[in-house]
């Protein structure tokens, strides 16, 4: 029989044990009778010889080796029984634990899905990412550098350790079938899907011969785009789509949910693109993922890349001197939410800790009132270890049931939580309850159970049994009171941390709300715009087309002014370039940086940016006139100090080979968002005329350009007329990503607002739990002091004296907690300041308000027990003995 069989068949085992001993007794007795004893005497002797049957049985049970399990089962049933005896206590404790564990589980589920889970590809540990590195590249500002297309092709061909695939982000106007629309396009090498190890939903991937110049024009569709536009109809295979005027045959559909950081609408072969920036080694646009070939290690791959890189540098010193290639494990890009998630997980753990402290003090109160029962059991022979185990079983049962309820709460709460998430949560599709989450919930429940069960369990009496047994209601358990006090203090301290954090977030938002964004966000519409693909190859036609767009938009009723702009404030995207105030330029990565924006003359009017000095652009600024720029006040101060900036010259190699003349100074715009701009690294801003963008760059610039439209009517009401008016003669010009400036500005604070909301909820929960904790502890302690209070009143204490007695006790615990909490909150504030944009330095007022709220809540919670104490009838209190 295995141990679990023995446990399972406990009833049968008991029966057999009984039968075996009975057989022994009867056999012995009958032997004695056969020897001539009197039957009654014989049975008596037999029993005497065997000893107490219960004791023998107990010893036999011990010998079975499953004793601990049987005890556990017994303790478990005992725990359920005691919990059912006090349903009120059980309900409060369970609800507290369910809330704590539920909230923690929700946060962990999100963290697990977004940060911890590996990529959803086969054998994700062998996937890597490549990037380039050179001494002149400013990695701190721009992040990792991609590869030049030619470098990528060389590495791909020569590598023995890696299977490489390339991807280029792009966009295109899809003019057929249906209405013209701007789509997210990835240009990919033919092996991208096979390298990642994913199967297509329908059709096939690109063939190697399609991935080179002159290959058949083919395209693949992204799964969601296919669902959205073609209703998921597989008959789309073999039909054609028109992308930027080029007709391509659809050969495949990417698998459902396929994404690599984000999702493409349409794919085309990278090798067919004839764009100049893909046919040199100076531009580095190609993102590269790879899979380690069987038996190869990351180190071998890196060594090979170093060698190949050196070879390329020797062969092409002009572009590749000093350029190296690096390989690192492929990980999902979740940097933007990492700190938010950890912050929230930290905050929710504090709530869980408070919940634990709360349940611990509840359990402790019960343990103290059960002291006599426990002492009695010790006196009857129960071992201390056994009683401690029993107490722990009780708290484990409580914690596990709380955990089950918590997981249920988490399943209900997860979706609403994700809906509230500001913007798009990366990898949201990975967020779900899985075995990892359940394991986490189990571990958290057990740890909580141990945490809140330990203190009561260790109160099991050992010594001075007799005193415990004799003690009446009069004893004041000094150590219990101290323990209770420290639980309350801990709860208060944790609540202080959460309240101060919430207060700081609130202050940051209030502060940001009154900041001047630098533009007039009211009645301002921002949209991206794609010209007709037919105009793109011809610079002159591009210029004419944009002028046409401005003219047409002007005629739309409700439009006051319109301008073109490449990088819009408070929206994703920026153009950082280096500058210098003299022609003697230092190396590129030693030069300061500024934000460059190319605009049409009406930009100031459309955006509502104030002109401080000089002039803004007009129609006289053309390709053949002096190159000019307008800088903002911050740049003027930075570059020229107190001197007059107008008429000065600046050297900005990315914009013009020669000097640029500063013709005006305008107000600073919070490009990096309301909260983030103050702490941004690059705050200098300048504008240059779109009309002076050289012909060679015009196509690329044109693809990046948006329109800013100031309206005299609510801006969203002009969207449709505008869209219609801007279709153009060919009918394939597209307005897309339409936003109001108010939306963009609000979105820059979305993270802070979301954090404030959650910290506010957590702080509220903490306050509530801490109040319940204080109330429970004081009610209990005061209840035990009723006889003492009776004596005091009999000796002449007034009701006010007694209330003060109780309130003083609570105040002492609260102040202790506040003191510890302030220290912890200062540390938490530093973490917040580092991780959240726009946080202000900690203000004493935040602390003052927080502490006032807490002390008020604590006093309110203490008031009821205090009043009850003050109404004690001394005569009855003394009789209670």
């Amino acid at each position: 029989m295995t141990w679990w069989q023995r446990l399972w068949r406990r009833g049968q085992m008991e029966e057999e044990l009984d039968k075996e001993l009975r057989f022994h007794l009867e056999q012995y007795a009958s032997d004695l009778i056969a020897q001539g004893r009197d039957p009654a005497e014989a049975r008596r002797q037999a029993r005497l010889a065997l000893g107490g049957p219960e004791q023998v049985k107990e010893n036999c049970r011990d010998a079975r080796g499953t004793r601990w399990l049987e005890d556990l089962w017994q303790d478990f049933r005992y725990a359920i029984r005691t919990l059912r005896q006090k349903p009120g206590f059980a309900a409060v404790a369970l609800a507290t634990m369910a809330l704590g564990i539920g909230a923690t589980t929700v946060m962990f589920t999100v963290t697990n899905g977004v940060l911890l889970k590996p990529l959803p590809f086969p054998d994700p540990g062998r996937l890597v990412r490549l990037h380039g590195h050179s001494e002149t590249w400013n990695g701190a500002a721009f992040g990792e550098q991609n590869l030049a297309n030619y470098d990528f092709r060389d590495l791909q061909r020569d590598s023995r350790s890696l299977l490489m695939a390339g991807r280029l982000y792009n966009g295109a106007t899809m003019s057929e079938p249906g209405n013209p629309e701007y789509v997210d396009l990835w240009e990919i090498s033919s092996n991208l899907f096979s390298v990642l190890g994913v199967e297509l939903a329908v059709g096939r991937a690109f063939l190697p011969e399609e991935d080179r110049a002159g290959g058949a024009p083919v395209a693949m569709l992204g799964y969601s785009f296919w669902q959205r536009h073609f209703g998921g109809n597989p008959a789309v295979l073999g039909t054609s789509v028109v992308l930027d005027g080029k007709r391509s045959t659809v050969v495949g559909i990417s698998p459902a949910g396929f994404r690599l950081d984000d999702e493409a609408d349409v794919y085309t072969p990278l090798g067919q693109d004839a764009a100049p920036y893909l046919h040199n080694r100076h531009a580095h646009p190609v993102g590269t993922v790879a899979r380690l070939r069987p038996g190869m290690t990351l180190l071998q791959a890196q060594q090979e890349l170093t060698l190949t890189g050196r070879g390329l540098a020797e062969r092409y010193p002009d572009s590749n001197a000093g350029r190296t290639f690096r390989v690192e494990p492929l990980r999902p890009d979740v940097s933007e939410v990492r700190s938010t998630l950890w912050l929230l997980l930290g905050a929710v753990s504090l709530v869980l800790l408070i919940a634990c402290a709360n349940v611990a003090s509840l359990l402790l109160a019960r343990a103290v009132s059960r002291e006599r029962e426990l002492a009695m059991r010790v006196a009857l022979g129960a071992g201390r270890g056994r009683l401690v185990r029993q107490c722990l079983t009780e708290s484990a049962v409580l914690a596990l049931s709380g955990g089950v309820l918590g997981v249920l709460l988490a399943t209900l709460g997860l979706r609403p939580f994700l809906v509230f998430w500001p913007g798009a949560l990366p990898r949201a599709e990975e967020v779900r309850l899985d075995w990892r989450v359940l394991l986490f919930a189990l571990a958290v429940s057990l740890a909580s159970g141990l945490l809140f069960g330990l203190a009561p369990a260790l109160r099991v009496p050992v010594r001075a049994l007799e005193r415990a047994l004799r003690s009446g209601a009069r004893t004041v358990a000094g150590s219990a009171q101290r323990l209770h006090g420290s639980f309350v203090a801990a709860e208060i301290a944790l609540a202080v941390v959460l309240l101060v954090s919430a207060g700081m977030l609130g202050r940051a938002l209030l502060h940001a709300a009154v900041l001047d964004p630098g533009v007039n966000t009211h009645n301002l519409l921002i949209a991206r715009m794609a010209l007709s693909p037919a105009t793109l190859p011809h610079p002159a036609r591009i210029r004419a087309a944009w002028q046409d767009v401005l003219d047409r938009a002007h005629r739309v009723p409700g439009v006051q002014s319109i301008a073109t702009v490449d990088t819009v404030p408070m929206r994703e995207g920026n153009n950082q370039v280096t500058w210098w105030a003299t022609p003697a330029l230092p190396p590129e990565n030693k030069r300061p940086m500024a934000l460059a924006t190319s605009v049409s003359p009406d930009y100031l009017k459309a955006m509502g940016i104030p002109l401080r000095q000089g002039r803004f652009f007009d129609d006289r600024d053309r390709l053949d006139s002096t190159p000019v720029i307008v800088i903002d006040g911050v740049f003027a101060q930075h570059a020229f100090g107190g001197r007059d900036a107008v008429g000065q010259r600046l050297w900005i190699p990315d914009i013009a080979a020669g000097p640029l003349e500063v013709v005006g100074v305008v107000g600073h715009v919070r490009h990096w968002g309301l909260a983030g701009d103050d702490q941004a690294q690059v705050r200098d801003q300048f504008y240059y005329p779109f009309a002076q963008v050289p012909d060679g760059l015009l196509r690329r610039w044109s693809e990046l350009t948006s329109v800013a439209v100031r309206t005299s009517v609510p801006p969203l009401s002009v969207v449709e007329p505008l869209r219609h008016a801007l279709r153009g003669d060919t009918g394939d010009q597209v307005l897309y990503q339409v936003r109001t400036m108010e939306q963009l500005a609000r979105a820059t604070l979305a993270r802070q607002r979301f954090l404030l909301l959650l910290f506010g909820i957590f702080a509220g929960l903490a306050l509530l739990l801490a109040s319940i904790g204080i109330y429970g502890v004081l009610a209990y302690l005061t209840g035990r002091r009723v006889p003492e209070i009776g004596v005091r009143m009999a000796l002449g204490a007034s009701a006010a004296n007694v209330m003060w007695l109780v309130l003083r006790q609570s105040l002492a615990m609260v102040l202790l907690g506040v003191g510890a909490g302030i220290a912890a909150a200062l540390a938490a504030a530093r973490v917040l300041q580092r991780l959240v944009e726009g946080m202000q330095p900690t203000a004493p007022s935040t602390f003052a308000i927080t502490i006032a709220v807490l002390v008020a809540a604590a006093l309110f919670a203490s008031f009821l027990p205090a009043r009850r104490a003050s109404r004690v009838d001394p005569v009855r209190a003394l009789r209670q003995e």
Partner: protein
Amino acid sequence: MPEKSGLPQGTLDLLILKVVALGPVHGYAIAQRLQQVSRDVVQVPQGSLYPALHRLENRALLAADWKETGTGREAKFYRLTRKGRAQLETEAAGWQRLAEAVGLILRMSEGGAE
């Protein structure tokens, strides 16, 4: 579990194994056999016999079946497992060696100790 038999620690187990080795036997018979064979020198308190039997069963040195006795009653008969037999042999040998050594020391002449 305290041994109240007055036997050295572990000896009771050895004796039980030896008795059971002679053939399947129930608890009461083991007690009787021990007492008879040792000519009443070994008094096994019956209270510690059963825990010892259960312990040996738990360690898989003994196995047990319910069978009818000669008088037609059902009793739990213990028998030796293969593991039990091996254990009996090592323990018996060890006991033998110890007994001889102790005997040698006890038979030592007074002066021989120097």
